[in-house]
């Protein structure tokens, strides 16, 4: 007990060095914990985006690409699928429901999704949660739009505002605006913390109407377009959609349906199981995650080495202290215990501070990160592996203490008691 108090007071006596050492360890521990939090946050944000969907169907291509554009609104499709094929499959006896998506347009960097009522009633995320409205209702008419909560907060829109959609998916204002046919905001979706928040939702007919009179990939000449007011739902023929989500009546048919879609005669289609595709995604990203962990580990090693250096060099200033301790009868064990306790205390304090720092940062940065990157950083307790790493840091701190401890004991007694200091 006396030794503990001695170690504590000795550390206090060198407050600045002690504080700096603790801070350097704390920073590396905070980085370790922070990286782990972001990693788990990314995983959870990604994997809670689509629930209760058995298959995602799109034009044939890469399964990851389909997952990314259909669910995460990233990248774009290489091809659309015909509305006829969609209807054949939607009416398949093994299918319970489908949600069609028509993609490819944007509004100030936010993707526009053409869909149907099914989206508002059937779509699920985080296992059972469904789409809810913070204000207004689902769009019914051709030129009505519902917007995700991020869109509403980023652009300051409210119910009744008119928005102009842009051809293509550029970020920011586009050049080819569909400004002849503005959409009126009818609903604002409640926050979901998924990519759903970052999109605008219009009826499939709206998507078709927006591109009416376009010929050979270019908009109609001024004066040649059909006036928006005269476009009726009945006049519109939906020709194509980009992808659709599908739920089978029973999951026993999922593999059969997947095969049927993948070998669809009329058109090259592809069906993926969301869970399987997500797992594939994780394996791809896994390397980057590992690289990140390795870098973090190195930072931690550097932090611990910094502690070693500072303890070791402080021995020079402490020759007198050590010499006095030994003169009053402190044996090798006592000296070693003292220094090892010191470095253990430093590592412990650094770790505790680091963990605190990481959580404080996560707490303050949470809303910011969520808004800008769509990543939800959960404030979760460290995993078993996390605890293991943290204890390893403290143990490493204790072990490192032996180096200066042995050195301190070997320093000659006369060295510290001599007159020349």
């Amino acid at each position, binding site marked *: 007990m006396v030794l503990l108090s001695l170690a504590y007071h000795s550390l206090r006596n060198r407050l600045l060095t002690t504080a700096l050492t603790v801070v350097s360890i704390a920073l590396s521990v905070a980085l370790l914990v922070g990286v782990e939090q972001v990693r788990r946050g990314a995983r959870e944000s990604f*994997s*809670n*985006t689509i629930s209760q969907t058995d298959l995602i169907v799109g034009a044939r291509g890469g399964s990851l690409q389909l997952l990314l554009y259909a669910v995460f609104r990233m990248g774009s499709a290489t091809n659309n699928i015909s509305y006829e094929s969609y209807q054949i499959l939607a009416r398949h006896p093994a299918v319970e429901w489908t949600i069609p998506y028509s993609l490819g347009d944007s509004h100030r960097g936010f993707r526009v999704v053409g869909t149907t009522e099914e989206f508002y009633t059937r779509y699920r995320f985080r*296992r059972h949660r469904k789409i809810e409205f913070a204000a207004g209702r689902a769009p019914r008419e051709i030129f009505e739009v519902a917007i995700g909560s991020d869109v509403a907060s980023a652009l300051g829109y409210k119910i009744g505002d008119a928005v102009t959609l842009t051809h293509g998916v550029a970020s920011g204002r586009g050049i080819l605006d569909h400004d002849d046919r503005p959409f009126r905001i009818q609903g604002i979706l409640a926050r979901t913390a998924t990519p759903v928040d970052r999109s605008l939702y219009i009826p499939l007919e709206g998507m078709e109407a927006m591109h009416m009179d376009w010929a050979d990939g270019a908009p109609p000449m001024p004066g040649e377009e059909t006036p928006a007011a005269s476009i009726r739902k009945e006049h519109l023929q939906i020709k194509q959609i980009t992808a659709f989500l599908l739920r089978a*009546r029973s999951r*026993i048919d999922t593999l059969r349906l997947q095969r049927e879609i993948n070998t669809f005669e009329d058109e090259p289609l592809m069906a993926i*199981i*969301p*869970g399987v595709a997500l797992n594939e995604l994780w394996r791809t990203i896994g390397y980057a995650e590992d690289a990140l962990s390795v870098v973090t580990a190195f930072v931690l090693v550097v932090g611990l080495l910094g502690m070693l250096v500072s303890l070791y060099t402080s021995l020079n200033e402490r020759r007198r202290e050590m010499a006095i301790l030994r003169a009053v009868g402190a044996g090798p064990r006592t000296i070693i215990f003292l220094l090892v306790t010191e470095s253990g205390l430093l590592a412990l304090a650094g770790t505790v501070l680091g963990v605190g720092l990481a959580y404080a940062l996560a707490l303050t940065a949470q809303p910011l990160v969520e808004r800008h990157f769509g990543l939800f950083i959960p404030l979760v307790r460290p995993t078993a592996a996390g605890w293991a790493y943290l204890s390893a840091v403290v143990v490493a701190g204790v072990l490192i203490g032996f180096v200066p401890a042995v050195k301190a004991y070997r320093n000659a007694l006369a060295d510290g008691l001599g007159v020349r200091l």
Partner: protein
Amino acid sequence: MKAAALALAMALCASGQKRADWVQLRGYNYKTGRINADARSLDRAEVAMVGYMVPFDDDQSTTVEFLLVPHYGQCIHTPPPPPNQMVLVRMEAGRRARVVWDKPVSVSGRMFVEEGKGALGRPLYRMVGTRVDEVTGY
């Protein structure tokens, strides 16, 4: 490998559970609807089956429903397993199974053999799972 499987089988026998295997499941002719005695004996039996999991939900850690199939990855490159080579497992109320990828699992629970040739939406084999263990030694 075989020794491990044998040890597992013995451990299961000791616990009063039958071990169902994929060959036994083929005793249900899904074209004619005929079920032989061996396959029928599985109905309402407490069994353990080793196979691969095909989970559906986006939740990458646990699931309540999944398909048990005899080979991993076959769902993509070749036709899916025939109806009598798939078991639809639903975990007992309140239980969730840990998701295991590309490693075999042993699923314990009560097996139900359904009549009716497995028309759309009707599994031939259904199981109410009580536990799922990762099988090592394969």
